[in-house]
């Protein structure tokens, strides 16, 4: 599949979805003007990828901020990871947060309880 490479901006995250190099990550802030327009291609790509994923998929979430409209999209992505997991593919979600950002840590914990996917919470020094 053609990779998706989006450069991070003030209000939209950087996104890499690259099957060949096995890199899957979202990084930065997410408060797009229209979550649908921004994330539709991502969901379409991931849905397609989930049909024939790599033997092992590690998805790194490195959000600094996301709005509530984005939170639903994150769950959609995680649900696709769950499907891969159910069809016997190895998956791992790595949820990164800044050490002092309790809310971002809590969000990771909440998501990890909502989907059947191996989840790692990774704290970073500022």
């Amino acid at each position, binding site marked *: 599949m053609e990779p998706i490479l989006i450069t991070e901006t003030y*209000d939209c995250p950087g996104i890499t979805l690259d099957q060949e190099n096995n890199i899957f990550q979202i990084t930065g802030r997410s*408060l797009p003007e229209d979550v*649908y327009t921004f994330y539709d291609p991502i969901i379409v790509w991931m849905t397609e990828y989930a049909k024939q994923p790599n033997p092992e998929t590690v998805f790194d979430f490195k959000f600094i901020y996301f*709005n*509530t409209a984005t*939170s*639903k999209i994150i769950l959609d992505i995680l649900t696709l990871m769950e499907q891969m997991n159910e069809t016997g593919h190895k998956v791992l979600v790595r949820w990164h947060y800044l050490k002092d950002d309790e*809310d971002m840590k809590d969000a990771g914990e909440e998501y990890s309880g*909502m989907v059947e996917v191996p989840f790692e919470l990774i704290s970073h020094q500022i």
Partner: protein
Amino acid sequence: MVPEEFNSGYLNFVYDFYKTMKAKEIKIVYEGVITHQIIKAFIALSEAQMEQTGESARVQRIVFHVMVECLQNISKHACPVNNNESEKSRGIFLVSRQTEYFCITTGNIIVSENIQKLKGALDQVNSLNRDELTELYKHQMKEGRISEKGGAGLGFIDIGRKTGNPLEYSFLNVSETHSFFVLTIRVSRET
């Protein structure tokens, strides 16, 4: 030369306005159409102001979040009287810094038919504790469809649990069909 309008009370108005803003520590005030560009400008401005006054990282993050959610609400839901397109997404927006709180206030016109629904959502948030709000949030994320306007009904719930303060609101009847909806969110400053 002093413009004509300054002689007719305008100068006094500006000075009174200046004094009020200073006294009430109003950091940002805006009336007009709220576009995505304006939202970005305000959150950047507010970030810079908070950085300067040395607010804690958590307070900064919560104020940022409340601003994003409230402003995106107006840009998506504010409804013009008489279906005047140029009045769409229009509202007033205020941020003030008090000793113990940041106050983020928005005001916008809504169709009065929506009052009950809105009031129901706000009262529900105000009646729940943090854990209950988290459960409701998770439930809404799973079950709630994102509306065509892009909101998922999650904003109020998340503001409630992140600030830990009640959502203060009121509705003012402005015509037979429309009302002015005012919402104030307090974000406690850590001292």
